[in-house]
C-alpha cells in the first residue's frame, strides 16, 4: 500500500521542467546551435582581424582584374587580357569537360567489365578480374602519371609524328586531328539529324503501344538506324557535301592547324576513366548478383532467351541496386579531376592556384574552389537521385 501512496504523491508533485526529455532536447539543440554560430563568428572575426593586421587585401573585387597569364587549353576564347573571372570560367569548363566525358567512358567501360566478370567465358572473366584488381588498387595519381610519363611522353617528337588515318597525327604533344569546317547548308544536315531523332522517339512510343495492345513487335532498332543516320546523310548529299577539313601542316615547332587534343587532357581523361571504371565494374557485378537466381530461372521457364533475360529482367532490377553507389563514383571522379594539377591540365584547381599565387588572395580562392565543387557535386547528386526515383520499384 505504501508503495502505491508514494507513487501517487510523486505524480501529484509538479515535476521540474528540467526533467522533461523534450524540453531538455530543445535546450541541448539550442546550446549546440549557439556554440556553432559563436565558433564560426569567432573564426570570421579573427580572420578579418588578422588579415587587417597583416595588411593583406581581401574581398572578391580582384577577380575583375586583368588575368595577364595564358592558358594551354580553353573551350572558350581566352587571352591574357581576359579577367580572372574568365580564367576561372575556363578552368571550370575544363573540369566539367574531363569529368563529363570521363563519367560517360567510365560508365560504359565499367558496365562491360562488370558484366564480363560474370561471363561464363573463362578468359573474359579472368581478364576483367585482372583489370579490376589492377586499377582499383593503384592510387589515381599514379594512374595519371602512368599515362602522362609512361605512355604519352615516349611518343615521338613533332618532327617524327606518327601519321593516323584521315590526316591526323600523333606525337608527344598529343593528337592532332583534321578540323571540320562547316560551310553554308550544313545547318540542314543538323536539322535532318534532329528530325531523325524525334521521329525515332515517336516511332519507339508507337511501337511500344502497339506491342502492348496487339503483341506484335516492330523492328525499332533498324528503323532508328535508318532515321538517325540515313536522313542526315541524305541531306548532306542533297546539299552538295557542305563540309571540308583543315588538315594539320608541319610548322617550325609543331604541326599547325587542325584540332589539338593535348597529352594532359588525354592522360587525365584516360586515367580517371580507367580508374573509376574498376569501381563501377564491381558495383555492376554486385548489382547483378544481388538479383535472386529465381528471377533468371523464372524467365527461362517462360522461354525467354539469355540475352533478353539479362536486358529485360535482370538489368532493370539490378539498376535499383547499382544507381546509389554509382552516384558516389561519379562524385569521386569529378573530385579526382583536381589531380590535373600534377600534370598541368588547366582545370579549376590549377587555374585557381595560378590566380591565388598571382594575387595572393588565398582565402577567397579556396572559398571559390569549395563552393564550385560543392555545387558540381550537389548537381550530380540531384540528377542521380531523380534518375534513381525514375528507376525505383513502382508498387502497383
Amino acid at each position, binding site marked *: 500500500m505504501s508503495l502505491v501512496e508514494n507513487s501517487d504523491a510523486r505524480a501529484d508533485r509538479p515535476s521540474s521542467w528540467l526533467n522533461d526529455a523534450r524540453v531538455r532536447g530543445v535546450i541541448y539543440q539550442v546550446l549546440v546551435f549557439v556554440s556553432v554560430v559563436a565558433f564560426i563568428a569567432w573564426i570570421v572575426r*579573427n*580572420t578579418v582581424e588578422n588579415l587587417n593586421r597583416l595588411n593583406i587585401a581581401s574581398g572578391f573585387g580582384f577577380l575583375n582584374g586583368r588575368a595577364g597569364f595564358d592558358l*594551354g587549353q580553353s573551350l572558350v576564347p581566352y587571352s591574357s587580357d581576359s579577367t580572372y573571372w574568365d580564367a576561372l570560367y575556363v578552368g571550370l569548363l575544363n573540369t566539367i569537360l574531363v569529368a563529363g566525358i570521363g563519367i560517360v567512358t567510365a560508365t560504359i567501360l565499367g558496365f562491360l567489365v562488370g558484366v564480363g566478370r560474370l561471363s561464363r567465358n573463362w578468359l573474359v572473366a579472368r581478364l576483367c578480374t585482372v583489370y579490376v584488381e589492377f586499377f582499383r588498387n593503384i592510387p589515381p595519381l599514379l594512374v595519371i602519371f602512368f599515362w602522362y610519363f609512361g605512355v604519352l611522353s615516349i611518343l615521338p617528337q613533332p618532327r617524327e609524328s606518327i601519321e593516323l588515318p584521315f590526316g591526323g597525327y600523333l606525337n608527344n604533344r598529343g593528337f592532332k586531328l583534321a578540323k571540320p569546317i562547316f560551310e553554308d547548308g550544313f545547318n540542314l544536315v543538323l536539322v535532318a539529324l534532329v528530325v531523325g531523332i524525334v521521329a525515332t522517339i515517336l516511332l519507339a512510343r508507337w511501337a511500344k503501344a502497339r506491342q502492348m495492345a496487339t503483341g506484335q513487335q516492330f523492328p525499332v532498332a533498324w528503323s532508328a538506324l535508318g532515321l538517325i543516320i540515313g536522313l542526315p546523310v541524305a541531306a548532306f548529299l542533297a546539299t552538295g557535301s557542305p563540309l571540308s577539313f583543315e588538315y594539320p601542316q608541319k610548322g617550325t615547332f609543331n604541326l599547325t592547324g587542325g584540332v589539338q587534343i593535348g597529352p594532359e587532357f588525354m592522360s587525365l581523361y584516360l586515367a580517371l576513366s580507367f580508374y573509376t571504371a574498376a569501381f563501377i565494374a564491381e558495383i555492376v557485378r554486385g548489382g547483378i548478383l544481388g538479383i535472386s537466381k529465381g528471377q533468371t530461372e523464372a524467365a527461362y521457364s517462360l522461354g525467354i532467351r539469355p540475352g533478353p533475360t539479362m536486358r529485360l529482367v535482370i538489368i532493370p532490377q539490378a539498376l535499383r541496386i547499382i544507381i546509389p553507389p554509382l552516384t558516389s563514383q561519379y562524385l569521386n571522379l569529378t573530385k579526382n579531376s*583536381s589531380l590535373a594539377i600534377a600534370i598541368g591540365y588547366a582545370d579549376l584547381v590549377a587555374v585557381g592556384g595560378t590566380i591565388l599565387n598571382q594575387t595572393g588572395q*588565398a582565402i577567397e580562392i579556396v572559398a571559390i574552389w569549395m563552393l564550385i565543387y560543392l555545387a558540381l557535386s550537389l548537381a550530380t547528386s540531384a540528377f542521380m537521385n531523380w534518375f534513381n526515383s525514375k528507376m525505383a520499384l513502382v508498387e502497383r
Partner: protein
Amino acid sequence: MKTKLIAGLLGTAAALAFAGAASAATLDDVKAKGFVQCGANTGLAGFGAPDDAGNWKGFDIDFCRALAAAIFDDPNAVKFSPLSAKERFTALQSGEVDVLARNSTWTISRDTSLGLDFRAVNYYDGQGFMVRKDLGVSSALQLSGASVCVQTGTTTELNLADYFKANNLQYNPVVFEKQEDVNAAYDAGRCDVYTTDQSGLYSVRLTLKDPDNHVVLPEIISKEPLGPVVRHGDNQWGDIVAWVHYAMLTAEEFGITQANVEEMKNSDNPEIKRILGMEADTKLGTDLGLTNDWVARIVKHVGNYGEVFERNIGQGSDLKIARGLNALWNKGGLQYAPPIR
C-alpha cells in the same frame, strides 16, 4: 601532391583564422627558438638546393646562413623550408617561415597587397629563353607557334604572356607547379622552349640529360630584381634582413674576406674598424638589435658578397655566371650598399 598543396593552403587559411591577434617581434621569436626558419627553393642548383648529403647549398641559402651568423654567431642555426613558387608567399604571411630567400621578384603588387616587404635586391636578373640547339632558333622573335614550359605563379608567366602579345607571336603555354616538373617536361620534349630568369636557365641547363644540346637565347625580356622578403610591419626584422645584405656588400667593397677578417679587425682604417665593430663606444650593431661584431660574424662564417657569389654561381661553380649587373657599383654593376656609419 594535390592533397599536400590543398592542406598547405587550408593550413594557411586556418592559420589566418586561428592565429592570435598579438604577435611578438620576429627577432625575439627567432632568438627564443634558437634558429632562423628560412623559406628556400625546392631545388635550384647554385641558388638553393640540398646536396648529396642533404646539406642546403646555394646563393640564397648563404644569405640565410649570414642572417643566422649575424644573430647567433652560428651559420648552422637555420632551418630550411622548401617552398614552391605557389606556396612561398602564403608560408611567409602565415609565419611558417621568418624570411623568404628564394629568388623572388620584387614587384609593386607583391610589396603592397600581400602584407610583405621586399627589403633588398641580392641578385639582379632578367627573364630569358632556352631552346634545343637543333631547332636552329637564334632569337626569341622566331618562337611563334612554340610550346613554352613555364612554372605557374611566377612573374615569368606574366612576362611571357606580355612579351608574346607585344610581339604578336603565338604560343602554347605548358604550365607546371613545381620546378622539377617543368624541368622534366622540357627534358622529355613536351615543349620547345623553357623560360624563367636567366640565372635559373643556366642552373636548369646543368641538370638536363644533355646540357650541350641547349642554348640560352640572347633576349632578356624583363627586369627581375630578386631578393629576400619579410612580413610587412616588423621594421626591426626588415632592417636586419636588409643590412645583412648591405654588410656583405660593404665587406666586399672594403676587401674584407673570410680569410682576412680577423686581422682586418686591427686595421688602422677607421671605416673598416667601424664596420667590424671595433670603434670605441659604437652602437651600430646594438641599435640594429644585434651585437656590434655582427658584420665580422657574417664575413667570418659565410664570407663577403663576392665570395658567396663566386662560390655558388660564379667562376668557382659549375654555373660560371658573370657578375654583370651584380658587380659592385664602383665596378660597373648595380650592387650598392648605403654606408655603415
